[in-house]
């Protein structure tokens, strides 16, 4: 209701057949579409390749700092691009500024978490006896990887690749900041047409074009995902690295990954202490103060924005867990229609935030449904973004439960309800918490959709950061990074807490 209806209303209102042709033949649009496609493909391929090793390590091994490392890898995906992107830009050599390469590198940085988490979650429950058997039969590790592990992982690989593709295809912040004016994507072009030129027709045409491409990709990936599914007895197979070479692999992979993820974040923290005179505590000290100088205040309340963000996150998490959980159960049990639902839930991710924002504006505009600046619209937007992740965290586990297991339970005398409870529901807490953490973190950092909604009352943290960045002067600039640092710590904590629950469950099992 909060996605399809507004989108359809907008299309119905503004779309004219002639504008389809006009837009798609306007000068430069071919180049925009071409750049969008190839950068998304290259970014996805590289992200998958680079995320594979850390996914393996976090899935298979238990080691000191594992949770912290996982949180650090995850957080850049959640943080608003404006902030991390700015720090990222400062780290890149100057001749990279405004290049396609910078865009691709940033996309890998932001999305590697998707691969590590989605592929890692599946890998963690792959039974080790299969690989052990293969090894015993004389297969080399490479052969085991290719013929045993990869085929079993395929559903998660497809899922991760399609999510990364969606995010890089519709990328906005990273492209604007790092690609510069010569490398616009379709999403950037949509925003430009809708907000700078007031050409909403053209924006709607482009957002449909974008959606069609993504729908095809998602449908295709869902199909392959299902075809490649296997059922197996899920186990928890994380263990401490035993041999020296195992320890070395774990150390090298994690150290490299974490170092690469931490560099821009360290830059961000450093900037929160830097003003005209060099290092200074003033930005932090005056963060909560009403007045920066006597009579002058920025009108940004960091602690207030923290409360707003927490409220949004709680609501968005609750909504996305309820609806995402129900959707996952439905998808797992209903075969054919489930596939449609699965694909459908990913579509909001692929729809331009501008279009959804404008759609909501003209849909919910009549009393008693005049919700245009209702305080709860942003968390609903956040939940729309988070639901696919909730579904995707739960589905692999749900699907790997075979009907035989439930049958066996019933045969052994359990009532159908009890069988369902014992076999399916009891296996969910771990993935469910992980999903909740992800949803909360997504909500904390969400920026795109929120900016296009009309807002009343206090700002959430990402919006407050953006407002501070939009002002001239050393103190507000450093304060933006101070607030971003707080957001980083908060998001990392949420992710770590969610992951901790998973660890506890694993121990109990």
């Amino acid at each position, binding site marked *: 209701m909060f996605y399809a209806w507004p989108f359809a209303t907008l299309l119905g209102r503004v779309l004219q057949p002639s504008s389809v042709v006009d837009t798609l033949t306007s000068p430069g649009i071919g180049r925009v579409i071409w750049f969008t496609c190839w950068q998304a493909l290259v970014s996805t391929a590289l992200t998958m390749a680079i995320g594979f090793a850390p996914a393996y390590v976090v899935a298979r091994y238990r080691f000191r700092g594992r949770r912290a490392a996982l949180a650090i890898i995850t957080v850049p995906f959640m943080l608003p691009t404006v902030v991390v992107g700015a720090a990222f830009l400062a780290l890149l050599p100057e001749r990279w500024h405004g290049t396609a390469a910078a865009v691709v590198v940033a996309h890998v940085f932001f999305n590697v978490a998707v691969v590590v988490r989605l592929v890692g979650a599946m890998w963690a429950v792959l039974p080790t006896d299969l690989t052990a058997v293969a090894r015993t039969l004389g297969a080399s590790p490479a052969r085991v990887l290719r013929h045993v592990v990869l085929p079993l992982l395929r559903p998660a690989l497809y899922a991760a690749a399609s999510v990364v593709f969606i995010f890089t295809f519709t990328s906005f912040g990273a492209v604007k900041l790092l690609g510069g004016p010569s490398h616009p994507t379709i999403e950037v072009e949509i925003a430009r047409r809708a907000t700078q030129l007031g050409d*909403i027709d053209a924006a709607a045409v482009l957002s449909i074009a974008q959606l069609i491409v993504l729908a095809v990709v998602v449908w295709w990936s869902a199909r392959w995902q299902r075809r490649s599914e296997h059922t197996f007895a899920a186990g928890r197979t994380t263990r401490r690295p035993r041999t020296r070479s195992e320890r070395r692999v774990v150390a090298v992979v994690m150290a490299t990954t974490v170092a690469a993820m931490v560099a821009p974040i360290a830059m961000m923290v450093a900037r929160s202490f830097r003003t005209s005179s060099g290092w200074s505590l003033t930005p932090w000290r005056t963060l909560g103060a009403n007045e920066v100088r006597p009579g002058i205040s920025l009108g940004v309340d960091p602690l207030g924005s923290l409360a707003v963000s927490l409220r949004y996150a709680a609501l968005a998490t609750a909504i996305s867990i309820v609806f995402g959980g129900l959707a996952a159960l439905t998808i797992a049990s209903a075969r054919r229609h489930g596939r449609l639902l699965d694909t459908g839930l990913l579509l909001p991710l692929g729809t331009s935030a501008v279009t959804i924002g404008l759609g909501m504006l003209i849909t919910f505009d009549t009393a008693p449904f005049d919700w245009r600046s209702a305080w709860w619209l942003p968390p609903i937007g956040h939940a729309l973004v988070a639901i696919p992740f909730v579904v995707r965290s739960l589905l692999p586990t749900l699907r790997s439960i075979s009907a035989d297991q439930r049958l066996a339970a019933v045969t052994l005398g359990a009532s159908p309800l009890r069988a369902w409870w014992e076999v399916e529901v009891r296996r969910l807490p771990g993935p469910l918490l992980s999903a909740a953490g992800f949803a909360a973190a997504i909500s904390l950092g969400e920026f795109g959709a929120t900016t296009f909604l009309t807002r*009343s009352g206090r700002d959430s943290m990402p919006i407050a950061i953006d407002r501070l960045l939009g002002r001239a002067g050393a103190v507000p600039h450093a304060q933006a990074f101070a607030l971003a640092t707080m957001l980083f710590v908060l998001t990392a904590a949420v992710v770590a807490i969610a992951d901790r629950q998973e660890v506890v469950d694993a121990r109990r099992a």
Partner: protein
Amino acid sequence: MRRWIASITGAAMALGFVACSGDGGTAPVTVTLVAYDSFPTEKTPLNDALATFTEDTGITVKIVTAGDAGAMVSKAALTAGNPEGDVMWGVDNTLLSAAIDAKVFAGEPTQVDFGDVCVNYDIAYFTQHDLQPPGTFDDLAQPEYKDLLVVENPATSSPGLAFMLATIDKYGDAGWTQYWRTLRSNGVEVVDSWETAYYERFSGSGGSSGDKPLVVSYASSPPAEVVFADPPIDAAPTGVATGTCFRQMEYAGVLRGTRHGDAAQQLVTFLTGETFQRTLPLTLFVYPVNGTVSLPEVFTKFAAVPANPYSMDPVRIAQHRQSWQEQWTQTVID
């Protein structure tokens, strides 16, 4: 585990109730003021001024923010006749004609403030290199300023658009693309947003980390540098090339379709009155239109008010905006 979920849901609901009970205003009339994102919603002298309006008239003012000025006007055009609020603040002269054509306003909007978009320079750089800072558009094309200037893309940034319009006003339909070709061969750098230009590429701001000593920003950026410096300073680190300025004027007006026409009109009158106008320089860093307001000292000392800024008729801007942006892209980027 279940307790964890229960507590999350519980917390969410509790917070929800708090939010609901906090929302309901008790005043007889509430007027909603639609503004762009950088308009403060609380805790500034500007908001204190609005509170005095409520005290005097009994009309409560609710502020909603609707994105940047461009997004705000697009939304207003889409909802013309059934607006999101009663009064809109901050439609500038580059967007005014589009807003009027879309019949966003009931009656004529009123000018509420003005400001200039100009090239800013890093004073320290030019002192160190014993170079005169540029003053005009012609100067910027000179070889001694090669590779020094960073500008914003007029297709995505409002100061970028203003700067392009100034060059069109100066060199005319026939000459402006030629001017940009010269700038291009003189090494002008283009980025997508003011934030990137000012903080990542420009060298002069207290918070910046770039190496370009010339940037397109506002004539009021130098006083902002003084006000927000740490530790406090008594001279601005940046100056303004007063021959490169474009005058931006912002308007406010009653939105067509409002149910509180009288109250909305009272608010617009208040927005141009002395009490409110006095707060503009140090909150939005723009100049008041009300002539009785005296400017704060940092403004009289460090802000430049160009004698003859470039400007353009809003109708002409609305007519040619898109094609100019396309020509600019072809000239400077492709």
